[in-house]
């Protein structure tokens, strides 16, 4: 099917969005009955070392980012949230405890309460609420996105996988102003690199991927988005992409993209607002 390329701002050929999922300890400090203190330090690395490293890198390269922070992490590390916000990066919603069955193990009212709790943490730290919604690991019930928009007032979500361009959500009564910026697993560092020995993580304990191989995948992906005019939406995790060698890999990737003069690097909020005004 032939499709017309999107007309991005300032004649850009494609858009690039870095969503940074600041999981910290949240993915690893459960279930409470069987604590794994050693594994928790794998997540803590992201807070202790990576966030500063990623901020420094993206400032040096002038790359906007959107940081999605679980409520418990914002609560535990308010100075980090303030720093990210004060440097002009976006703060978005990513669960309170990085709930992994948020929409299936509790009622709608209960998960709405999870969202409100995280929002009130953001409000108390930086005086504003998140407008971007990135669903945590789990899938969600069919009417959840409508609730994110109608009841919770989010501007956009980046939770779907079914496109390589933003689109307006349609809840059966025509297109709304709720924007989806879909992301794709191949642009997620987690499936390539996440590792724990025991308990095995991921559960099949696949090998940590080859850095040079992944970099090559990512360059192919960028070329594809650039040629087709898509919106390249990354999912990066500080505990994964912030370790020394992989932060240099990311730098190499950013340089590769910055080689092109006509790429629009933007936050999720900027892309959603622009899409809402233009498409």
């Amino acid at each position, binding site marked *: 099917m032939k499709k017309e390329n999107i007309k991005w701002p300032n004649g850009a050929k494609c858009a690039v969005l870095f969503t940074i999922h600041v999981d910290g300890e949240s993915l690893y400090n459960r279930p409470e009955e069987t*604590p794994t203190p050693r594994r928790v330090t794998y997540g803590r690395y992201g807070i202790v070392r990576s966030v500063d490293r990623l901020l420094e890198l993206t400032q040096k390269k002038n790359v906007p980012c959107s940081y999605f922070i679980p409520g418990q992490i914002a609560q535990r590390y308010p100075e980090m949230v303030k720093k990210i916000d004060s440097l002009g990066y976006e703060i978005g919603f990513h669960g309170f405890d990085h709930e992994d069955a948020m929409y299936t193990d509790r009622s709608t009212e209960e998960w709405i309460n999870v969202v409100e709790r995280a929002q009130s943490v953001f409000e108390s730290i930086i005086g504003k609420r998140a407008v971007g919604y990135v669903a945590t690991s789990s899938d969600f019930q069919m009417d959840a996105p409508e609730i994110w928009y109608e009841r919770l007032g989010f501007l956009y979500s980046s939770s779907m996988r079914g496109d390589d361009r933003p689109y307006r959500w349609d809840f059966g009564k025509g297109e709304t102003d709720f924007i989806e910026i879909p992301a794709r697993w191949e642009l997620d560092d987690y499936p390539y690199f996440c590792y724990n020995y025991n308990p095995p993580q991921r559960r099949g*304990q*696949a090998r940590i991927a080859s850095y040079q191989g992944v970099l090559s995948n990512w360059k192919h992906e960028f070329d594809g988005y650039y040629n087709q005019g898509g919106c390249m939406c990354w999912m990066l995790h500080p505990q994964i992409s912030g370790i*020394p060698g992989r932060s240099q890999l990311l730098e190499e990737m950013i340089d590769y993209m910055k080689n092109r003069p006509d790429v629009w690097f933007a936050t999720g909020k900027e892309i959603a607002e622009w899409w809402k005004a233009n498409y």
Partner: protein
Amino acid sequence: MKREVQWPENYQSAAMVSIMLDCEFIWLDMDPLYDTPKHRSMGEYGPKRGVDNILTALDDYHIKATFFVPGIAAEKYPDTVLKIAESGHEIALHGYAHENFAHLSPDEQREAIQKGINAIEKLTGKKPVGFRLPEGDCTPETFDIIKEFDFLYDSSLFDNDIPYFIENGKHKMTEIPMRWEMVDFTYLAWGGIFPAGACRVAVYDDVLDNWLRELNAFYDMGLCYVITWTPQTIGSPGRMFMVEKVLEQMTRKNIWVSTGEEIARYMLNQGKENKV
């Protein structure tokens, strides 16, 4: 970028070569069902063949490594462990029977550490000053228990890329963090129960590229690179080139390649100087 740790003699960064002499005990601890001849032989390859290859490479590059040894390995392979100690490498503790500390009560953890210390001290005459958890997790009590034994340092955690102190009361222990990315077993070991999804053995050149990229990045940033090898995994003829390449890069750069004990002592002394 500013350097957070001032390494000795103006070295740009630090590195520790850690060797885990897991032998067959890593397999036996995974599942008692694997107390079988073939699985045992996979682990036995380490002391039987791998160790000598690694000792030769370390000698060639004049590098002193830290060998984390389960107490039971010192009992079963005394000649191997003595040979390592007599070559000037550090012998540190890696549990008694390579037990997963997540599955032990606090008293069982104490017993494993005490038995491990006893086995090594009896053989080498020196009490180990370093500890690394056997592969597996631990419990909320574990780090208090480790400190009860006055270890100078631990090297099990993942939450930094430079050494730091874990303090409680008057005991101050150095943590020298490690990473799964720089362990051979995670990429290359293969057996009935590991890896859980029976995924393929990784491509050697890719694994080496990962290790060297991290080594270069740790060097650029002035950090403490900890590579971890198991003789049963990396010590075979076709894989030793990976060890040699990493050691070659380490010695070619301005890196302080040292043992866990030396790094921990340096950190402690530096801490004192900074306070004065």
